[in-house]
């Protein structure tokens, strides 16, 4: 009996379903018409229009600042968390594991709402700083997840060997453990960066007036139906950046032979 072709056909249809809207968006960013439903010739005018929008440039700057802060801090916190979870088996780590998992399952709107109430309760004014705190909080768990996966294949005998050869604990960590884990940590950081750049819901709750990131600015432009073709152009550029980041992180996470 021949195996059924249904699964393979479903797979192909799903991939078409995934890429059709994205392709539509990129195509439309070159549409001379202001309306998505009519094609009236090729044009790059929406890309040129991007340059006249200082608010977009400012929001992009904010997004990059927050994402950089969030990925750097969450790399440190997440790596420490992954180490603790991997090395030690105790009641403390059971609770720790539960805490690390909560941000992964908590719906965004609850995370945004709860952090907003926290900041209000402590009289903190909303700014890029509060956005960064929120982003670090959800990025931390993802970094911990990625680094933990890396630690599973990590051979701690290498560290033992360094210690036997006379390295101090700190030396062994800095010269052996960290360089070997660097690709995993960096991949976690890149994931954090893209998650931070992508976030809308949590940012919307904890951003103050005038501290828009790219997603919140784009969202308000869509809501006001303002300059929609410019959003297409902007989206296409962001797609290219995302694909570049994915390509880089693919290279980093590719399993490397341990020397």
């Amino acid at each position: 009996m021949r195996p059924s072709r249904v699964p393979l056909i479903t797979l192909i249809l799903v991939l078409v379903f995934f890429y059709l809207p994205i392709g539509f968006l990129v195509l439309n960013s070159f549409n001379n018409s202001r309306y998505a439903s009519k094609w009236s010739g090729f044009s790059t005018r929406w890309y040129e229009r991007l340059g006249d929008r200082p608010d977009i440039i400012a929001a992009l700057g904010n997004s990059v600042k927050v994402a950089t802060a969030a990925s750097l801090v969450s790399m440190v916190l997440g790596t420490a968390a992954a180490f603790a979870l991997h090395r030690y088996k105790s009641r403390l780590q059971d609770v720790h594991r539960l805490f690390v998992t909560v941000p992964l399952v908590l719906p965004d709107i609850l995370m945004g709402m709860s952090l907003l109430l926290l900041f209000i309760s402590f009289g903190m004014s909303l700014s890029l700083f509060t956005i960064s705190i929120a982003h670090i909080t959800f990025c931390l768990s993802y970094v911990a997840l990625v680094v933990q996966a890396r630690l599973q294949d990590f051979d701690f005998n290498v560290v033992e060997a360094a210690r036997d050869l006379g390295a101090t604990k700190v030396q062994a960590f800095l010269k052996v453990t960290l360089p070997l884990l660097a690709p995993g940590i960096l991949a976690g950081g890149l994931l954090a960066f893209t998650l931070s750049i992508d976030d809308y819901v949590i940012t919307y709750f904890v951003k103050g007036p005038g501290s828009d990131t790219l997603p919140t600015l784009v969202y308000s432009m869509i809501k006001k139906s303002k300059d929609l073709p410019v959003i297409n152009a902007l989206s296409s550029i962001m797609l290219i950046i995302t694909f570049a980041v994915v390509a880089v992180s693919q290279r980093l996470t590719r399993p490397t032979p341990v020397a």
Partner: protein
Amino acid sequence: MLKLKKPELLSTAPSFLWLVMFVLVPVAIIFAIAFRPALPAGGIGDGWSLNAIRALADPSYPALFARTIFVAALTAALCIATALPVAYAMARLTPVWRSRVLLLVIVPFWTNFVIRVFAWQQILHAQGYVAEALRFLGLLGENDRLLGNLAAVTIVSVYTYLPFAILPLFAAAEKFDFGLLDAARDLGAKPLRAFYSIFIPGIRQGVITAVLVVFIPMLGSYVVPDMVGGTGTQMIGNKIAQRNFTDRNLPEAAALSGALALLVLAPMFLRRRAKEA
């Protein structure tokens, strides 16, 4: 007394304290502020009040909660139904193709969420190609819209959550012993029968994970109903945002968030019980 090693404390403390401060305490604050009075200017008053809790008895809320659970369950069901054959097909590919297709599945969910929903808003627009084609075929009335209804919300939700369903199912399918399917067929089972009786039970844990990673975030869905839905498709998340940003009534927003938190915790608690059983 419990004795902990110093290196364990040092590596645990940073993330542990951060998560207590910015996850645990904030969630507790949600429940506390639900019992505070609202100030007319939009702030939180002193003292305690049951007004926000009483506001949960709003006659429109049972329908709101039912709609939220229905859309979340329907989206989860459609995602699983689609992801199962996809995971099956992916697991049967050669290793090289498997990682290629995996990348193809992951990439769209790394593109900006708001932008993906925006693309759908344009596709389903009343003057868009899809609407025109359906009108031409007589499947859509002259004044009917593709946006603003539960169907639009569900389709776009499936689009955004399908990769989350595929990944755990694929991870489980990769470990599945496909020889079992051949055995079932040798014993006379039809392919579909083998799929239901052998494959799906074989990747049970993956199915449970996939259901949860779609259903739970969908309960807090906010962007999709806001962008492609209408007044009749509001979900709990939209109501929380409305209470928060339009009505400026933080205690009522907190009470609704608390109710949503309990709704989210329920399936996780059930899963824990199921694991222990």
